[in-house]
């Protein structure tokens, strides 16, 4: 599991530097934002001169999934003290969430588990990004490492397609983002997110 985190972290570091933002800004982004998909996407947008507000809007849509994790983890953590919940909020990540849910299925109090997994993933991620930033300049462009970013998103999204409604959400999102490609400044992602959600909910309703 950590191997996947490290691989994606290195790729995110390489991709950010390759798109032209300063190494220091890339590392600071990793520490503050700590969300790989949005970091790679916004580094591309920033280097092409996209206005700040649109970069932030794109970040919101890409990271909207954390809100779903937050809503789901609330079931387990709503009675923890506020300072713990403030920390847990920062540590939520795709794989930490997945692991915690699996664990919570047969253990009642996953607080220590979440904290352990969260800190391990966080540390592995930061070290991997730093390594990616450092080697970013050294890897020849002919290796085509920038293609690893979409590959990492494929690796994250395909295993989620476990039922028909989820497949409907993904397929409609893909078709929408392609059809709306002409929209300026990645607004196509927002359109695809909304269409995908609607398709998933509709498919869920039709199946019942």
């Amino acid at each position, binding site marked *: 599991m950590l191997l*996947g985190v490290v*691989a994606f972290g290195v*790729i995110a570091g390489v991709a950010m530097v390759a798109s032209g933002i300063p190494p220091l*800004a890339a590392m600071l982004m990793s520490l*503050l*934002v700590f*969300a790989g998909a949005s970091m790679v996407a*916004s580094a591309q947008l*920033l280097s092409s001169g996209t206005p700040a507000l649109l*970069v*932030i809007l794109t*970040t*919101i849509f890409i*990271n*909207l*999934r*954390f*809100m*779903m*994790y937050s*809503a789901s*983890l*609330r079931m387990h*953590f*709503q009675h923890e003290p*506020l300072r713990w919940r403030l920390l*847990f909020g920062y540590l*939520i990540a*795709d794989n930490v969430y997945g692991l915690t849910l699996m664990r919570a299925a047969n253990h009642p109090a996953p607080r220590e588990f979440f904290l352990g997994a969260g800190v391990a993933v966080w540390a592995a991620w930061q070290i991997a990004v730093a390594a990616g930033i450092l080697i970013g300049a050294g890897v020849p462009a002919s290796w*085509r490492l920038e*293609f*690893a970013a*979409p*590959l*990492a998103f*494929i*690796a994250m*999204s*395909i*295993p*989620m*397609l476990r039922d028909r*409604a*989820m497949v409907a959400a*993904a397929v*409609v*999102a*893909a078709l929408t*983002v*392609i059809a709306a*490609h002409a929209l300026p400044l990645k607004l*196509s*992602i927002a359109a*695809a*997110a909304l269409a*995908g*959600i609607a*398709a*998933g*909910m509709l498919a869920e309703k039709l199946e019942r």
Partner: protein
Amino acid sequence: MTLWLTLLGMALVTYGLRASFLLLPPGIETPALVRRALRYVPAAVLTAIWAPELVFAPGMEQLAAGVVAIAVAWRWRLTFVTILAGLASLHLFHWLL
């Protein structure tokens, strides 16, 4: 300057999304409709990020390598293997096509 402000904005919205429901006081129920809608966000958004990178790439090799990566991810569900298979096929198709 704009870069740093943008970073700060990204950090704030991302933390806000992460912490959102965790910071609500105990006892408040998440509306069922919101929970149902949020369930589809990760699959929809992640797919919307990679699909254009395959379809609108300059050559055909990205699309072909992407299809291989999708098959590998579907079959084995391993991040690292998927990335390796995708990169290897990219170079293979580049050489072939």
